[in-house]
C-alpha cells in the first residue's frame, strides 16, 4: 500500500547537521578563525562586503566561514542580516579626493600631482605558484617610499581634466535625496545613482563579462583609465541634533574613473565623458568593469544607439544581482510536481492526437506497401 512521503522536518534537520560537519572538514586540521579569514583572505572579504552592500570585515569573514567559502552564499548571509539593521540616516558623500592612497595609478598621464603609487598589486607579479608559501613564514618587509614633496595631495585626474573643460562636469547637486535600491523598487528607466548601486552590488563575474563585451565591440565606449585609486577615506555623518558632521570611522575603497571619448552633440561640444566605479576594499577588476558598464548604460543620455546588452539598463539591472540569479536558477530544485503533472497530461493528449492523425494518414500508405 502506498504511503505518502513524510518526514520533511527530520530530513531537513539531519541535512543541516551534515552540512555543519562538511563545513568543519577534517577535525584533525585546526579550525579557521574569523580573524584569519579577515586578514588573509582580504580580497574575498572585500568582495563579500561589496556585493553584500555592508562594510563590516568581521561579519563578511564570518559569513565566508559559515558559507564554506561560497561567495554568493556569504553575500546572501550578509544581505539577509543587513535587512534587519535599523537605519538612522545617510553618511555624507565620501571625499575620495582626500583619500589616503595606498595605490594610485593613471593610464592617461605619465605623471601628475601626487604621482603614481604602485602599492600592493598583483600587477607585474609572475603568476608562478610559490611553493615556499605552502610552508608559511613571514614575508620580507617592503621598503618605505621617500615621500614626494606633494605626497598627500592627490587631486583626482578627472578633476584636473575637468578644470580644463575637457571632461564633462558632474551635474550640480540638486538636493534631491538619492534613491536606495534596497528600500524602493526600481522604476525603469532608473537614474544613474540607482544604476551605480546595482552595479556595485552586482555579481563581479557578470559585471566583468559585460564590461569586457563593450571592449569587444558590443557597445564600444573607447575607454581610458583616467585613474584608479585605493585607500582609506573618512566617513562622516551629520546627526540631526548636532547639525555638524562627526567622523564615524574610515573605510577602504577602490575608485575607478574611466575617461571616454565623446564627439559631442548639437548642444554639447566634443569632450570626454566618464564612467565610474566604486567598491569596498580593493578590487580594481570590479571597479573597472563597473566603470565600463556605467558608461555604456549612459547611451540613452548621450544620444548613442542602444544595440548591445551592456547598454540596455533593463537587461543589466534585472540580471546583475547574484542573489536574484542564484535564487531563481536554484529554485528549479523545488518540487514542481503539480505543473509537471499538468504538462504530462497535455503531452499525453497531444501524442494521442498526433498518433490518431498519423494513423489516418499512414494507414493507406502502409496498405499499399504491403
Amino acid at each position, binding site marked *: 500500500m502506498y504511503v505518502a512521503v513524510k518526514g520533511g522536518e527530520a530530513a531537513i534537520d539531519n541535512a543541516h547537521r551534515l552540512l555543519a560537519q562538511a563545513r568543519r572538514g577534517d577535525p584533525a586540521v585546526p579550525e579557521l578563525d574569523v580573524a584569519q579569514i579577515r586578514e588573509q583572505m582580504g580580497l574575498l572579504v572585500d568582495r563579500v562586503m561589496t556585493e553584500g552592500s555592508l562594510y563590516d570585515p568581521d561579519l563578511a569573514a564570518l559569513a565566508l566561514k559559515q558559507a564554506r567559502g561560497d561567495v554568493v552564499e556569504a553575500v546572501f548571509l550578509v544581505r539577509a542580516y543587513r535587512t*534587519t539593521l535599523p537605519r538612522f540616516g545617510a553618511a555624507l558623500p565620501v571625499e575620495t579626493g582626500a583619500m589616503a592612497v595606498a595605490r594610485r595609478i593613471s593610464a592617461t598621464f605619465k605623471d601628475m600631482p601626487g604621482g603614481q603609487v604602485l602599492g600592493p598589486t598583483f600587477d607585474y607579479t609572475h603568476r608562478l605558484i610559490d611553493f615556499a608559501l605552502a610552508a608559511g613564514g613571514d614575508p620580507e618587509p617592503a621598503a618605505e617610499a621617500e615621500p614626494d614633496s606633494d605626497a598627500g595631495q592627490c587631486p583626482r585626474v578627472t578633476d584636473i581634466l575637468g578644470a580644463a573643460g575637457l571632461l564633462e562636469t558632474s551635474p550640480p547637486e540638486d538636493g534631491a535625496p538619492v534613491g536606495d535600491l534596497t528600500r524602493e523598487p526600481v522604476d525603469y528607466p532608473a537614474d544613474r545613482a540607482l544604476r551605480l548601486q546595482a552595479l556595485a552590488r552586482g555579481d563581479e563575474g557578470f559585471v566583468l563579462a559585460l564590461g569586457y563585451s563593450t571592449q569587444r565591440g558590443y557597445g564600444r565606449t573607447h575607454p581610458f583609465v583616467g585613474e584608479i585609486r585605493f585607500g582609506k577615506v573618512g566617513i562622516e555623518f551629520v546627526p540631526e541634533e548636532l547639525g555638524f558632521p562627526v567622523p564615524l570611522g574610515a573605510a577602504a575603497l577602490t575608485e575607478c574613473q574611466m575617461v571616454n571619448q565623446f564627439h559631442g552633440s548639437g548642444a554639447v561640444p566634443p569632450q570626454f565623458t566618464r564612467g565610474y566605479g566604486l567598491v569596498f576594499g580593493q578590487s580594481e577588476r570590479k571597479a573597472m568593469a563597473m566603470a565600463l558598464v556605467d558608461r555604456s548604460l549612459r547611451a540613452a543620455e548621450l544620444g548613442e544607439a542602444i544595440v548591445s546588452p551592456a547598454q540596455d539598463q533593463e537587461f543589466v539591472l534585472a540580471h546583475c544581482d547574484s542573489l536574484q540569479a542564484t*535564487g531563481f536558477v536554484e529554485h528549479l530544485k523545488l518540487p514542481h510536481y503539480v505543473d509537471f*503533472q499538468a504538462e504530462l497530461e497535455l503531452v499525453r493528449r497531444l501524442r494521442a492526437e498526433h498518433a490518431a492523425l498519423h494513423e489516418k494518414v499512414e494507414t493507406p500508405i502502409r496498405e499499399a506497401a504491403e
Partner: protein
Amino acid sequence: MSPAAALPQTGYNFAYLDEGTKRMIRRAILKAVAVPGYQVPFAAREMPMPYGWGTGGVQVTAAILGASDVLKVIDQGADDTTNAVSIRRFFGRTAGVATTTRTAEATVIQTRHRIPETPLTEGQILVYQVPIPEPLRFLEPRETETRQLHALAEYGLMHVKLYEDIARHGHIATTYAYPVEVAGRYVMDPSPTPKFDNPKMDDCPALQLFGAGREKRIYAVPPHTRVRSLDFEDHPFRVQRFERPCALCGAEDVYLDEVVLDDAGGRMFVCSDTDHCETRRDAIAHGESA
C-alpha cells in the same frame, strides 16, 4: 500574547521584518486590494531564504500575520514538502504563531502552486508565492512596455498567444499559470497553479494576496471578485479532468499527483492536496467504525 513574548528566538522582530517594513508592505497590499489585479511595486527586502523560494509570499505573510493567527503552509498542495516545512518553521520560530495543516482551521494559508481543495471561507487569507508576476513577460520582456500595455489595457498580445496554441494544437495548450482577467480590467498571472485551480479564484470569499519578492511586486484579488480565465468564444476555457479518482480517498474532481511505483510502468494517482485527502480518509474510517 504580546509580540515580544512570541519570540523564542533572539534578536529579531515578530515575524522577522521590522515594523516599518511591514507597514510599507501593508500599504502596498492595501493598494493592491484597491486596484484588483494591478501589480503594485514594493521594496522587497532580502530575506533569509533565496529569491524564487517564496520570499514574496513570506514577506506578505510576515506583514499581515498577527499573534493570534493560525498559519498553514503548502507547496504543491502538500504540507510536508520540504519548502513548506521550512517556511512554516520560519514563522514558528520568528513569530511563534500557531500552525496547522487543516485548511479549515487556518486564518492565513501560504501556498506555492496550488489552491486548497477545501473551499475557502470569509476571513481567510490565501498568500501565493509568485515567481514571475507579469503575465505578458514572455510575450514582451520589457518592463517599460508591459507597464504601458497594462495601463492602456492592451491585451491583444495575450490572445495572440492563445490563438497560436489553437492554431498549432487544436486547443489552448497552456496548462498552468493560465492568465486571468480580474474584475474586468487587469490581466493577471495566477502564479504557476495548474489551470485546474483557476475557477476557485472566481468569486472566492477569501482574500487572495500575491507576493513576488525577486520581481518586487504585490497584487491582490479581494473577496468576491470576478476572475475570468482568458479564452475564445468558440474555444472556451476548460480545466483538466482526471480519468480516475484518488487511489487513497476516492475523491473525484480534485487535482491528482502521479506517483511512480516501480520501473515497470506502475503508477498511481493520489490527491495533491494532502490535507483534503487525510480529512476524507479520516471521515471514511470514522464512518466505517461508527
